[in-house]
């Protein structure tokens, strides 16, 4: 680390006593506070206003939603009920939920052992395995989609459903494996050693000792996978598009406009209904969220 040393002036003047300072310094701090907070407020507007406008439009009447008006003339809460009763909307909900839940469970159950092996076992080929895992993470899904689709559609006749997306998750997910490995690395070896001394086999060590300690990491990975499935558009587009009964919220939302011509008010209402669950879950699982995000890059 480089240190810059300038000529040291008189430290008595430089050192800032805690608490009150001179009037000049106080004014400087106040100006600083104003500057920082004005920028913050301006940016906050950028982040928050879209939600506000979406909401305001969602309660407008049909004609008003297509004009340039910003404030609703009438508060049509019935729009939300119309959206709910749009044919298929509840199906989309059910499908998204099933996909996300099953996908998450499969992913966690299959990725934990793999991550554990990569973190704690030593074997030839571990380096290769890690490289392969990371390469798979970097892979755009479109690279392998064509043959995969052909197999699922023509060999297994599972196209028109979400199973082609869910089943592979029972075989580990590269991103989850990577994250879990990072986390498991931080578990001190002593716990594992002491379990072995007590006579536990590897599997029991994993289940009884490691997993409880790894709960935050597992929770984070589960959350990430849940929202990956919830937000997934490409997967359902490939496999579920041909069967409207299997559509998910993400895919259905994009086709929503066709079903309702250009009703922006209904589309905005639908958009909010799709965004809402994520935000609600976030509020309940804030800690795991933030922990998970920091897990992705920080601790080493």
């Amino acid at each position, binding site marked *: *680390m480089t*240190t810059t040393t300038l000529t040291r002036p008189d430290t008595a003047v*430089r*050192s800032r006593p805690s608490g009150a300072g001179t009037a000049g310094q106080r004014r400087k701090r106040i100006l600083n*506070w104003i500057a*920082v*907070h004005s920028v913050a407020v301006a940016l*906050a507007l*950028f*982040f928050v206003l879209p939600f506000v*406008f*979406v909401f305001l*439009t969602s309660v407008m009447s049909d004609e008003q939603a297509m004009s*340039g008006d910003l404030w609703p003339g009438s508060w049509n809460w019935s729009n939300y009920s119309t959206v709910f009763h749009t044919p298929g909307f509840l199906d989309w909900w059910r499908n998204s939920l099933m996909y996300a839940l099953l996908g998450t469970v499969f992913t966690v159950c299959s990725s934990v052992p*793999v991550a*554990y092996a990569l973190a704690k*076992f030593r*074997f*030839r080929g571990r*380096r290769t395995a*890690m*490289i392969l895992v*990371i390469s*798979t993470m970097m*892979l*755009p*899904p*479109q*690279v*392998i989609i*064509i*043959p*995969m*689709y*052909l197999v699922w559609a023509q060999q297994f006749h599972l196209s028109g459903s979400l199973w082609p997306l869910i089943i*592979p998750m029972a*075989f*580990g997910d590269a991103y989850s*494996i990577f994250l879990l490995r990072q986390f498991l*690395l931080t578990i001190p070896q002593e716990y594992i050693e002491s379990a072995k001394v007590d006579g536990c086999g590897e599997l029991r060590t994993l289940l009884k000792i490691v997993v409880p300690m790894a709960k935050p990491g597992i929770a984070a990975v589960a959350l990430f996978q849940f929202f990956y499935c919830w*937000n997934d*558009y*490409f997967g359902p*587009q*490939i496999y579920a598009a041909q069967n409207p009964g299997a559509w998910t919220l*993400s895919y259905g*939302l*994009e086709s929503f*406009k*066709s079903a309702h011509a*250009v009703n*922006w008010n209904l589309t*905005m209402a639908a958009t909010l209904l*799709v*965004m809402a669950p994520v*935000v609600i879950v*976030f509020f309940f699982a804030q800690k795991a969220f933030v922990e998970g995000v*920091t897990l992705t*890059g920080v601790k*080493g």
Partner: protein
Amino acid sequence: MALSLSTPAKSAGRATEPAPRNSPLRRKRNRERLRTLGFLSPWLVGFTVFFGYPLIATVYFSFMHYNQIKAPTFVGLRNWRYVLEQMPLFGPALWNTLWLVVVMVALRVVFGLGIGLLITKVKSGVGLFRTAFYIPYLAPPVAATVAFVFLLNPSTGPANEVLSWFGLHGPNWFNDPNWSKPSLVLLSLWGIGDLMVIFMASLLDVPKEQYEAAELDGAGAWTKFRYVTWPAITPIVLFAVVTGVVQTMQYYTQALVAGKLASGVSIGPGTVIQPGYPDHSTLTVPQLVYSLGFQNFNTGAACVLSLVLFAIAMAVTLLLMRKSVGLIPAED
């Protein structure tokens, strides 16, 4: 704080001389190997079946003509020549993807860092601001895109409406070929929450004493940043860049949804949806793969393009991985 995947060297290295046959050591090692295999088996199967096989099959199909109804026929290099030379959309798709990778990643990292810095300086209502900045990231990509297409609608959207209050005539955003990609970048900046959190965390991790020492030396804000903050957060910035590049190379959903919605084309008589509306400006390589494979059912050409995408992704990955040394475990 270095970013590394290396295991802390806790236990002693394993002996490497081969053990005599049928010795307890040999049996133990075999048991260990079996155990390792067992734990890794889900991933091993998954990797072979869901990655290895499709990759080989993609190469196979790239030399075939197959429309998914009649059996495939061998056509040699015809698909390759078609994609690389005769397909007019190939160039725009590559260019758009490249443009997005460079511009979107750079702006996201800078903006994310800026917001992270800002948040660390905010004194009152930090929690509120943090939540406000983070929540858009949670919005599902399709929902966020639909919202933005509406907001940025040139004639009826609030954005241009508000701009007109200030006497500004807003551009055509998603309907203008020159503004469509910047509109997508704007959308991605709205969802900066994830970068904000990791930058924030790493900024807060910088030891306060270093700042204080620098201040005592008379360092100003910029010098503090350059010599204290920056070296400490470089690994995170690098990580953000790497993951950003990886994600943007796969950029698909937002571009596709924005193009479809903005073009205003609803299902109707004789309408053909133009990929990458407007003017192919939002067409990315992944979208082109989908279009070739699932709209034109030109399996062979789609596979060729997939391989091109794969090659680019691998090249970029190798390049970046070399730069982030320490990403791979050093020992075996």
